[in-house]
């Protein structure tokens, strides 16, 4: 038996109301649907959000039990340099695992999930973590700008301790040219919405779901929840009607609260469905993009004791409005902004040093002295405790899942930032260890000495001249 052992999600803090977009670029003639989109902050992208969802999903599960990481996205920062390997390193997974990027279509979310389930069935080791994440760049004023939201979901697929068992699937694939983006291009192109809706979305999802029902000789009434993205609100309901389903069987699409999160969309909705599910529920999930994959799960008794994930529900309620469209443009580097000459200083990333120090930089691992027990970041060979000083008596110690408190802080207006002031400070970790970090997702007025914090993986910089996207961990206020 294979299935889902855990789930998690991530929705960035910022939300932008469609009216904010409309009042800025509405003159271009696109009419806004109601609602708001989740907006990744200036230091977030598909990879940082995938890590955040992965952290949520893994909870206290030992990282060395994970046997693979599949990343699904259509907005990966790297075309060459495996994005899933970077995410796996950030999550401090062991090197002896499978990693793979699933990309090229919003269908890649369900595709990665299917591949993970197939892998788990024949697995020799551990579960496979599927992270689906999208942070798609849309051209200012385009219909996609109202449609696309940023977010991520993570599903741990395995054979033991399942909260939902995998019952079967059915896939259809078409070279459907609804949206495309050639190599090297910044923005997607799209064909007419009515074509996408009538010839694609309205057809493929229903085709995959009815194919699955037929293959397993089931009827739609037996399904508790039907999960598929809601690209077109009215058509979303029409598909259900065509399948003979009742509207009450439909899972909320998150379209008005998060937006269409691309590859992550069906998995985020699946996570939301699991959050509300009860033992015995049957969940049908289908993706969309160049066809459709439909998968069928049955929720087990273990769902009752399953807790401790922020998942979709808690992320939905924690939000801050981004009321400046111009700031959004700055976050996405869509309009030249003057950061002063400090913003022009390029730091060339020493790749060999990055690889050597990958545990410190990407996984926030330091060391703990086996003699005196002092945790220290980054990894030290000579113990920093002045009363100890032992040499080479260290064991690895991960700080990324440790909480801490603000030891001190500042809001720096001189540092180059698209979101000044730059807030940073020193953090004292629970259990020992101190270091300085940039702070994320906070406002200067709310930061205090002694404020509890947690760590978050963020994009540190983009060096366009050398094509490097740099990442590291930041501190953020401890979420309730």
């Amino acid at each position, binding site marked *: 038996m294979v299935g889902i052992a855990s789930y998690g999600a991530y929705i960035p803090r910022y939300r932008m109301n469609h009216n904010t977009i409309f009042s800025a670029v509405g003159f271009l003639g696109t009419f806004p649907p109601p609602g708001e989109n989740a907006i990744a902050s200036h230091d977030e992208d598909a990879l940082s959000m995938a890590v955040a969802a992965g952290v949520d999903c893994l909870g206290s599960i030992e990282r060395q039990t994970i046997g693979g990481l599949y990343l699904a996205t259509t907005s990966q920062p790297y075309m060459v340099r495996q994005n899933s390997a970077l995410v796996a390193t950030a999550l401090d997974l062991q090197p002896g695992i499978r990693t793979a990027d699933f990309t090229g279509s919003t269908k890649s979310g369900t595709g990665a999930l299917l591949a993970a389930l197939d892998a788990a069935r024949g697995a020799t080791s551990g579960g496979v973590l599927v992270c689906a994440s999208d942070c798609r760049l849309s051209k200012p004023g385009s219909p996609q700008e109202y449609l696309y939201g940023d977010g991520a979901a993570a599903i741990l697929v395995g054979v033991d301790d399942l909260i939902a068992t995998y019952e079967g699937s059915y896939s259809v694939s078409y070279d459907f040219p609804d949206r495309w983006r050639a190599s090297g291009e910044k923005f997607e192109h799209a064909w007419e919405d009515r074509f996408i809706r009538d010839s694609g979305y309205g057809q493929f999802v229903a085709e995959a779901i009815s194919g699955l029902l037929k293959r397993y000789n089931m009827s739609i009434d037996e399904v508790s929840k039907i999960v598929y993205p809601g690209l077109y609100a009215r058509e979303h309901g029409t598909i259900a009607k065509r399948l003979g389903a009742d509207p009450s069987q439909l899972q909320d699409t998150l379209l008005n609260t998060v937006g269409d999160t691309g590859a992550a969309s069906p998995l985020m909705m699946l996570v939301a469905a699991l959050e509300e599910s009860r033992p015995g529920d049957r969940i049908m999930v289908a993706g969309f993009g160049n066809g459709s994959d439909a998968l069928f799960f049955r929720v087990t008794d273990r769902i009752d004791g399953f807790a401790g994930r922020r998942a979709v529900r808690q992320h939905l309620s924690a939000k801050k409005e981004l009321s400046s469209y111009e700031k959004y443009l700055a976050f996405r580097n869509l309009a030249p902004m003057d950061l002063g000459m400090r913003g022009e200083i390029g730091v060339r990333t020493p790749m060999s040093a990055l690889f050597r120090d990958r545990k410190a930089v990407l996984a926030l691992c330091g060391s703990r002295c086996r003699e005196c027990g*002092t945790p220290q970041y980054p990894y030290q060979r000579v113990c920093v405790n002045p009363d100890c000083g032992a040499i080479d008596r260290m064991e690895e110690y991960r700080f990324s899942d440790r909480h801490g408190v603000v030891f001190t802080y*500042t809001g720096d207006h001189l540092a180059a930032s698209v979101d000044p002031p730059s807030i940073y400070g020193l953090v004292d970790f629970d259990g020992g260890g101190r270091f300085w970090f940039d702070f994320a997702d906070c406002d200067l007025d709310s930061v205090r000495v002694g404020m509890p914090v947690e760590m978050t993986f963020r994009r540190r910089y983009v060096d366009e001249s050398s094509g490097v996207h740099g990442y590291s961990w930041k501190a953020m206020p401890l979420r309730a």
Partner: protein
Amino acid sequence: MAEGIRDKVAIIGMGCTKFGELWNKSAEDLMVDAFQECLEDAGVEKKDIDAAWFGVHFEEESVGKGATSMSLALKLPFIPVTRTENFCATATEAFRGACYGVASGAYDVALALGVEKLKDTGYGGLPGGPGLMGTKSALIMPKLTAPGAFAMMATRYFSVYGLSPEEGKRMLAKVSAKSHYNGARNPKAHLRREITEDQILNAPIIAWPLGLFDCCGVSDGSAAAIITRADMAKDFRPDPINVKALQVALSPGEELMYTKWDGAHVETGYRAGVMAYEEAGIRNPREEISMAEVHDCFSITEAVTMEDLQFSPRGKVKEDIEAGRFNLDGEQPVQPDGGLKCFGHPIGASGLRMLYEMYKQLQGKAELPERQIKDPRLGLTHNMGGFPAMNIVSVAIIGL
């Protein structure tokens, strides 16, 4: 037990350029200016110099690596010239090298010169960023600036000693107002305007809680000293100034990575002070040190330094500041030349600039009578380089 440097070497000549935004002066021009004044003051010729030490911090932005820029600018005749760099203690390190060179008996007369040309970077504040601390730090440390790094110490000081931001900022405003008063009276200072406490408090925030006037000047300048053996010094001039102590302390990492440091003081500053007092035979620095030039890169740095150097008890500097203890006419004047705050801070020159002021005051030669401190016996200089959580502090004591 090591003997230390006390009374082994003496300063027989010093020079210091005007500091400021010297758009028409290159680093080489500044070196020549400081060197010329220094030679004239010492009454020696270039050929009398046996060896030289050269301090510059940001080499890429000005003179390049190594020490050849100094040997070339001054046309030093094939003598040894060594470059030193240790953040803001760079010039004091050059001075230390020259003193040790002479004290060792290797040389009779040595030159120490520091220079920095900061105003060719194109922006306010200092150049650089995380890359300053090496490749690994560049990948993990916050993108901090100097004001931000020191602002974190102010945040911490306010928190540890229970000062509201208003009380804390008012205390710091008094520190800056005093230095502006002193700078306004010094012809060589960069910033020569008196500023009121309210102007300071109402200035734009640079890095919370520090505002514009909590930050020192970013300046061009150069300063130099000529050193000889103490027993030879009177052959050169009747009023040489002896070196009493030269100490440096560096962070071992425990402030940044261990959880004992309270963040409201600079541990290296305290340690360097203790070592220097021992070397100079000083038991009560609050009473015995006549005056000081300390590293007031930011107002908070000066405030905690008063405590680190034991001029004020821990947590009590506010009372001394309010009582005017460190004013030009106070019991223990600090920054009589305006300090980094107003004299300016060309990094590689600052330590020697501080010594220049102490040297002139000890000789009774502060240019204007209103600037002259009465009968000083011992002057202390203090540089702090890096960040409160990871730094170097140097302390020098000179006297009659």
